[in-house]
């Protein structure tokens, strides 16, 4: 496991400044959520952390342990399953063997579907396979790029529960990008609000797990939401 340290990170695409002066230190094994309106730069920040985009200014460092970019996995907005591979083979990619893949599928409750084609599964099942694929290689860091955005409310709650459970069990460093404030408060130790490329709020969430929608939950939710809407 390792953490991530961003110092004065800026990112521009041509003249378009997407991120500016981002200072964040993410300890290993923590769960951080990044929220904000669409176009606020949250997905770009995730891609920078994953090493898919280079920073324009500032620095990105992996801290607290033996850091390897190859131990970072992303769960994307869309499932990105390979349509011409069976479910099992979709999970067993990039050095993951069949046994590890089956174990991962077992964890998301889909080992029964291992011989199916991706298009035979529902949207929620496909995202569960994508989660299994991300977990199968035992990642140090798992980045979630709004992976539940396209799911219906019930499937979404199930997935949130599953992600929380697996995170507690395997203790990988998690960063979740979402526009759903309640999802962020439900899952994260800490919520970062991003607006126009800069950090507007950095909020610890000090609630017992599993979390209930009680008064303190909603007050966190309200505080974050106000910040996003108010800017």
């Amino acid at each position, binding site marked *: 496991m390792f953490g991530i340290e961003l110092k004065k990170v800026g990112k521009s695409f041509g003249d378009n400044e997407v991120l500016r002066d981002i200072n964040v230190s993410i300890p290993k094994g923590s769960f951080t959520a990044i929220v904000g309106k669409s176009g606020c730069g949250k997905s770009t920040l995730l891609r920078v952390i*994953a090493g*898919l985009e280079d920073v324009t200014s500032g620095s990105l460092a992996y801290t607290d342990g033996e850091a390897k970019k*190859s131990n*970072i*996995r*992303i769960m*994307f907005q*869309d499932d*990105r399953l*390979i*349509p*011409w*591979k069976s479910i099992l083979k979709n999970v067993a*990619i*990039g*050095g993951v063997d069949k046994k590890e893949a089956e174990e991962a599928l077992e964890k998301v409750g889909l080992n029964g579907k291992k011989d199916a*084609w991706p*298009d035979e599964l529902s949207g929620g099942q496909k995202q569960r396979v994508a989660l299994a*694929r991300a977990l199968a*290689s035992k990642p140090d860091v798992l980045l979630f790029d709004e992976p539940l955005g396209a799911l219906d409310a019930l499937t979404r709650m199930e997935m949130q529960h599953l992600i929380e459970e697996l995170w507690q069990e395997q203790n990988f460093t998690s960063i979740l990008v979402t526009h759903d404030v309640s999802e962020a408060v439900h899952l994260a130790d800490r919520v970062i609000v991003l607006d126009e490329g800069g950090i507007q709020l950095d909020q610890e969430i000090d609630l017992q797990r599993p979390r209930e929608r009680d008064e303190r939950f909603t007050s966190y939710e309200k505080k974050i939401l106000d910040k996003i809407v108010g800017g």
Partner: protein
Amino acid sequence: MKKNKWYNNQLFPWLLPIVIVILWQVLGQLNLIKSTMLPTPIEVVEAGIRLFQTGELQEHVYISTERAVIGFAIGGAVGFLLGLFNGTVLFFEKLTDTSIQMIRTIPHLALIPLVILWFGIGESAKIFLVAVGVMFPIYINTFSGIKNVDRKLIEMGKVYGMSKWQLFTNIILPGAMPNILVGIRYALGVTWISLIVAETIGADAGIGYMATTAREFMQMDIVVLTIVLYAILGKLSDFIAKVCERRFLKWNPAYRKH
């Protein structure tokens, strides 16, 4: 369900050709079509049996098929490799794509006079023409297939630790496969067209040669027989292409079973 519709019967697509053949036979027998204009199906079949007994039929079909296979293999390999390099390496694309697109617009059969001067009327002339005709459809489809592979899947592969070779064999090539198969199917059609023309113009064996000699002796039944032979060979190669599609695209619901 779609499956239970009566027209999903395997024999149904053959209904129309059978009706046409029967109609043709009846019209011929009633002398509504003169057999000097168009011999009846039975006469054509008889001609086929006659030539089969002398061994001519097998010989000519064999030679034509051999030319088709060799020409297709050479042209297909060249087109596929060019498409592969140009689709994956930008340098090659910039270097050769414009030239290829330019040459592609020339109808390859317009090369016949040139080809005859180069190779005479020997085997290489026909194989060359088939290869040139086959090369372009395979090139274009391989190239665009590779260019259109879902970038998101490639990005996923990179994040999930695939090597360049693994990306190619697991994502890029299978992703381009539907297009490549379209190219193959189209190229198979081109193969037979090129061969028909090449064999009619200058040859001492092959189906086209059979047709030309039969024409000179006014053997209408053999002329029609050669046309039927081309149709059968064309359908056969299309069938092989279809089998390949089922095999390589079985993940795609459109190819799964009808």
